[in-house]
């Protein structure tokens, strides 16, 4: 039998005005198990807390009921209080007689009666409370960053800076991501490669960072502090330890017609290739889809010219397993496919390009060596039309319902750079809204208009039609002058919406991390925990969480790193003790609980049991991993036999509350 103390708080007049606190403490005194009952002006004050501590010692209390404000307010306070007096913090129950009683009832008698019932329910529950101890689980001091773009790079560098090992897994042969393809960055117009490549080199040289390039995560097991991840290192048919990146093979390879993905297919590469000059790691990769040797065993030129002997046609995919304490998703984005937007003639004319293709056309390392030339005839375009919101803010089903956020700024950048380099070019930008909320962003856009004379037109392009003379007829509306325009353009640039990378969805499944309907990862809290996934130990970096520009991506990447460091700093994690547990003798082994667990906290194993009839039997039983369980209780209801119960909210405790209320 518990020895219970009841403490009724006045909360000044907040409770005492509509609840007769004296009557409540008096009424609860006669409840079974209650050996002490009192009331006080402010229970949460130091004097109030001391009163509780003294009573615990004086009356040898084993359980405490506090009738006060919401447990969401002071449950933690009072748990600490009783712990200070030597009893388990989970032997406290709060009866919420302020928010759910005194504040909503005006009549004192009503309020007092209800407060007594709420107090009785809490007493009934405390009778069944058991001391709970929070479990601990160790933390593997190593982090995994999935995705090697600027987000992943920044996160990895910051984690490594704090002294922890960190691995980057990147599906492409090199890290760097989309930023490597960008020419200049807004709003400062410095060159993307100049600020990115030193960071890539830092990653390669940092001894705390290990890069798995041309690799994929194939399985994730475990939980916060203790993940086991399978990583597939795809065969690149080149021994990366031997390859020096000299590039001779990439010049001698006879297969010359492979579309170069780095330049978005606007020129070709060989079947053995290094994506670009500053690639990290700078090693060659054989494209098995095109290599003659791998396809039909005829060729072997690269092997012959490689002085390092790095070519290995027999290389196989390799799967390695590694343990991590934290995982960061940094899977990034892609521009959407424009198949649904026939009206812009993207598939009909080479001179209708996406903004990312425009970046390559203006980049010194691009297919035109930085000369802005029309893809169709290699001539300099004199009239360029930029179309914004292509597929963004689109609820018709063809595109994406959200704003892609970066297009307004990069389009202003493109327009400005074009006008600066080629002042003889007419540049039109069709916009629905120009969105420039960022430091120096609006100034940047205004410079495009005021200093560079870019024609910003409020309206949308309805149709782009290639003409026989090679120009493009752009039909658009100008909403301000209320007219329909026809512009004869040489080049049309579409600001395609961006979408999360396709690898994000399967990754989220592996991580049991949740996603929104657009396949962006969801945050643990949209405002207050923006870089954490609701799944403990999984963090979000960059555009996999939502559209972002580079400065935002980098700040989020560093924020995610800070969260990871905060986690890895701990030697052990304290778990929530209110978790599910399974009574093995009752467990049927039916797997119902396992199916409804959102965290994968339940596992099954065959165990030998001594049965009541003195035989031994091997039975399949469930076990809850207390470090992973978050205590929702879904399993307890799925369990038909009642083997699964929740500590702190057990079946019996809840039923005792029900009984007390219904009496």
């Amino acid at each position, binding site marked *: 039998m518990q020895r219970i103390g009841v403490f009724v708080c006045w909360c000044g007049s907040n409770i005492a005005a509509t609840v007769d606190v004296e009557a409540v403490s008096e009424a609860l005194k006669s409840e079974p198990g209650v050996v002490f009952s009192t009331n006080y002006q402010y229970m949460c004050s130091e004097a109030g807390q001391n009163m509780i501590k003294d009573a615990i010692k004086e009356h040898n209390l084993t359980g405490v009921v506090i009738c006060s404000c919401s447990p969401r307010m002071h449950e933690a306070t009072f748990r600490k209080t009783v712990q200070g007096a030597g009893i388990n913090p989970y032997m406290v129950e709060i009866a919420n007689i302020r928010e759910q009683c005194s504040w909503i009832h005006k009549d004192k008698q009503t309020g007092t009666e209800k407060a007594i019932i709420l107090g009785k329910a809490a007493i009934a529950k405390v009778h069944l409370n058991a001391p709970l101890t929070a479990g601990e689980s160790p933390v593997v001091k190593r982090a995994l960053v999935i995705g090697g773009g600027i987000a992943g790079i920044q996160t990895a560098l910051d984690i490594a800076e704090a002294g922890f090992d960190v691995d980057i897994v990147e599906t492409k042969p090199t890290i760097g991501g989309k930023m490597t393809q960008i020419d200049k960055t807004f709003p400062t117009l410095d060159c993307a490669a100049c600020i990115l490549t030193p960071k890539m080199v830092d990653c390669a040289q940092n001894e705390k960072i290990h890069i798995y390039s041309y690799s994929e995560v194939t399985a994730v097991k475990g939980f916060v502090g203790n993940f086991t991840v399978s990583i597939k290192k795809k065969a690149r048919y080149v021994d990366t330890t031997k390859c020096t990146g000299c590039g001779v093979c990439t010049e001698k390879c006879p297969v010359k017609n492979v579309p170069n993905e780095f330049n978005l297919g606007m020129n070709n590469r060989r079947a053995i290739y290094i994506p670009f000059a500053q690639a990290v790691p700078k090693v060659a990769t054989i494209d098995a889809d095109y290599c003659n040797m791998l396809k039909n065993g005829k060729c072997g030129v690269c092997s012959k010219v490689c002085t390092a002997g790095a070519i290995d046609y027999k290389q196989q995919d390799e799967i390695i397993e590694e343990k991590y304490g934290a995982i960061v998703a940094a899977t990034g984005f892609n521009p959407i496919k424009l198949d649904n937007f026939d009206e812009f003639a993207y598939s009909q004319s080479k001179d209708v390009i996406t903004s990312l293709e425009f970046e390559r056309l203006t980049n010194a390392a691009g297919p035109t060596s930085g000369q802005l030339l029309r893809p169709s005839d290699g001539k300099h375009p004199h009239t360029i039309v930029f179309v914004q919101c292509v597929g963004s803010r689109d*609820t018709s089903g063809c595109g994406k319902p959200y704003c892609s956020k970066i297009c307004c700024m990069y389009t202003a950048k493109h327009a400005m750079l074009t006008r600066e380099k080629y002042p003889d070019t007419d540049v039109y930008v069709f916009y*629905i809204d120009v969105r420039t909320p960022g430091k120096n962003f609006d100034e940047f856009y205004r410079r495009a208009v005021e200093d560079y004379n870019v024609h910003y037109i409020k309206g949308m392009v309805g149709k782009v039609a290639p003409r026989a003379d090679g120009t493009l007829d752009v039909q658009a509306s100008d*909403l301000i002058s209320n007219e*329909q325009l026809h512009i004869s353009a040489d080049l049309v640039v579409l600001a395609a919406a961006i979408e999360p990378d396709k690898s994000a969805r399967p990754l989220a499944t592996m991580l049991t991390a949740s996603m929104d309907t657009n396949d962006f990862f969801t945050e643990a809290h949209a405002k207050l925990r923006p870089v954490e996934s609701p799944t403990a130990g999984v963090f979000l970096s960059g555009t996999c969480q939502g559209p972002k520009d580079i400065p935002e991506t980098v700040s989020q990447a560093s924020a995610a790193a800070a969260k990871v460091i905060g986690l890895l700093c701990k030697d052990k994690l304290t778990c929530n003790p209110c978790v599910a547990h399974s009574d093995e003798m009752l467990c049927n082994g039916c797997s119902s609980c396992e199916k409804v667990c959102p965290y994968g906290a339940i596992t099954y194993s065959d165990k030998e049991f001594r049965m009541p009839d003195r035989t031994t039997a091997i039975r399949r039983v469930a076990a809850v991993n207390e470090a992973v369980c978050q205590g929702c209780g879904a399993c307890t209801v799925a369990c038909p036999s009642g083997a699964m119960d929740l500590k702190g909210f057990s079946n019996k405790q809840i039923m005792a509350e029900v009984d007390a209320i219904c009496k």
Partner: protein
Amino acid sequence: MSKVTKEQVLRSSGVNVLKCMRCGKCSATCPSYDEMEYHPHQFVYMVEKGDLEPLLNSDSIYKCLSCYACVERCPRGVEPAKVVEGIRNAVLRQSGMNHIKAENIPDMLDEDLPQQAIVSAFRKYKR
């Protein structure tokens, strides 16, 4: 003649004009743009404002080809052509002159005219 209300147009067209984000793609895509005094995006906006009189009195409602290019292209699924049609129907129903009467149909029959067009016009414009 009773007054045509915004609600009436919205109901008969089934369009939620509040979905419009004013991009103007409807007007950008409209093949009859130059013929029209009021353009598709204006129809949507003016109906939203309840400013129906100018539309009801404008020839624009007969210039719309009902080609549905604006409906097809609208990124927000607003369906401007249906708004135009809503206004047009309101005018037709009010005028009382242009209703098709069953006895007039035989005169309209024509080798080249699809019968379905007559049937649907009859359904639409009969009282």
